[in-house]
Every structure is written in C-alpha cells, then in structure tokens.
C-alpha cells in the first residue's frame, strides 16, 4: 500500500474512533441532565416552555401563552392511581382560585388519547389539558421521574417552591402544595 494511502487510512481510522469516543463522552455527560434540577427550593429558574396538543379541545397550548397567570403544572396519566386521588382536588383548586389568575394545567404523560379523555370526563377535569405524547417535557425538560408530579409557575414565568412528587391532596404533599401556591399567588 502506498505510504500516502496508508497515512490517509490511519488518519481516517483515528478520526472515526475519536468521533465515536466524543459521542460517548457527550452522551454520558448529558444523560439525565434536565433543564430543571431535582431540588428547586431557593433557586430562581424560568419554567421551561412547551407547546403541546390539547386533549380537551382542538389546537395546542403553550406555557408562555399563560404568562401573567399563576400556573400549577400537573403531570398525570390515566393509568396512574394517585392521579385519580388528586384530580378532584386540583379541579376544586382551579375553581376556587381561577378568579385570582390561577390556571391548573394538566399535562398527560405516556397515555392513550381515549383513556386520557375518559379519565378527564370521569373525574370532572375542566381545567386545560395537554398531552406530553413522548414524555419529553416531563423527563427531559422538567427532570421528572414519573406521575403525578407538580410544579408551580409564577406570573413572570418563574418556578416557585419545589416540585411535588406524589398526590398533592395527601398529607405532607398537601401542606407543601398550599405553601407553594401561596408563594406563587403573591408573585
């Protein structure tokens, strides 16, 4: 093999191996890293925006379109048992505080359309509902690990308080829910 050809082959091989190694390092370094850290308290962070298809009506809804309102972002699924427990409580919260500029935004995660609609009907959910069809908003953007999980966004679009992993109507979660909601409404 001519020396030039051999050199070109060697350079190509080193280039390919380096690229693959770089890809591996990048993948390991960014894996599981979301825009929202696991613990939020004490930090001021903009809530990652998203625009998702609505379940309750045609069209899409984006988080940024709700700027100026307090938004309780609740990730749920029809197959999730704790979500059944908290859904009526979230509906009551929305009805009670909507005149003060509160919106409960239900984000359905990894679900079947007709199951999600049936769930919303069964539990009388009248607040806006959208679908995180691929689960990327909850997992990649918000660093969520499952449902239910709830976040609080103030009128300026900043995250308030901390994430709540669990049914928000229950015990300690309920106390935190009330505290974070008050913080958000005061903003």
């Amino acid at each position, binding site marked *: *093999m001519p020396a030039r050809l051999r050199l070109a082959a060697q350079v190509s091989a080193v280039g390919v191996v380096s690229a693959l190694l770089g890809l591996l390092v990048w993948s390991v370094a960014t894996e599981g890293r979301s825009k929202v850290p696991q613990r939020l308290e004490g930090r001021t962070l903009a809530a990652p925006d998203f625009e998702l298809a609505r379940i309750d009506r045609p069209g899409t809804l984006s988080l940024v379109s709700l700027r100026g309102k307090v938004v309780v972002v609740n990730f749920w*699924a*029809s*197959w*999730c*048992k704790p979500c059944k427990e908290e859904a009526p409580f979230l509906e009551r919260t929305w009805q009670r505080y909507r005149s003060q500029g509160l919106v409960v935004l239900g984000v359905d995660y*990894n*679900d*079947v*359309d007709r*199951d999600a609609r049936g769930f919303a009907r069964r539990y009388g959910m009248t607040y806006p509902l959208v679908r995180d*069809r*691929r*689960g990327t908003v909850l997992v990649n953007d918000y660093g969520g690990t*499952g449902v239910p999980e709830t976040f609080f966004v103030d009128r300026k679009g900043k995250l308030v308080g901390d994430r709540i992993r669990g049914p928000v109507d229950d015990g300690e979660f309920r106390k935190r829910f009330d505290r974070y909601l008050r913080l958000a409404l005061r903003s």
Partner: protein
Amino acid sequence: MRLAAALLLGALALAAPAGASEERPTLAELETELYCPTCASPLDQSDAPIAQRMKAYVSDLIAEGRTKGEIKEEMVAQFGERVLAAPPRRGFNLLAWVLPFAGLLVGGGAVGFAAWRWSRGREDDAPPEGAADPALNGRSRLDPELDRRLDEALARYDD
C-alpha cells in the same frame, strides 16, 4: 423444473405464516415487538401500569380486526417510535439495519486484505529457491554488522 416448483412451494410455505401473522396478529407476538416507554423493556416482560394499559389497548385493537402494521402505527401515533422494539426500516433508522452488515463487510474485507498482505509478505521475504544455506540450519541470516560484532566478541572471548 421440479427444483423451481420445490423452491416456489418452500417460499409459499414460509410466506403463509408471515401473512397470517400480519393479518391476524396475536397479543403474544405484539408484546415482544412493542416496548413499554417508561420501563425500557418489551411489553411481555413488564407489569408496569402503563404496560398493562398498553396490552389492554393492543387487545382492543386486535379485537377490532386491525392488522399488525395498523396496530404498530397506532401505538407509534400514541407514544412515538420508541415503543417499537426494532426501528422502522426507513429514513435515518435504516442506518440501524444497514450499519451492522456494512461493518461486518468492511471488517471482513479488512481482515481478508491484511491476511492476504501478510501471506504475500512472507512469500516475498522467503529466500530464492536454491539459495538456502545449509549452515544456517533453517534460521535467518544475521545482519552483517551484527554478524561482525558477534565475531569480534567471540574472538575476544577466545583470547
């Protein structure tokens, strides 16, 4: 003629179950071809609530008379392509099917080429026929410089 008929019959025998599977899929086979999106395992190996719901949904679709392709399309529409155990053979995903074979071909070619060069190199290095020195007893000849230095050292040793 007989051989062609036998081949045709064989092909038909293989194609018939595949066609039946496409037209009338079973839950058991679809459970191995669909993934639970939250547990990263096939549906048949998962009892997570979402997996149970997906199995029930697939059963409903089978009962509706949907084909395997239609059911997979519906599951992709609901959950995205990550629910497919094997990536679809189109677009960028085609790389996942082609690259392993391409890698095998290139790797096999490289090994074959290296082996061919190595064997040729050995032939080229071999001394011409009839030139073998019986005194070497099958060993290769020493570098002349090394040979000279060895002779000097031996001479000093003899002294």
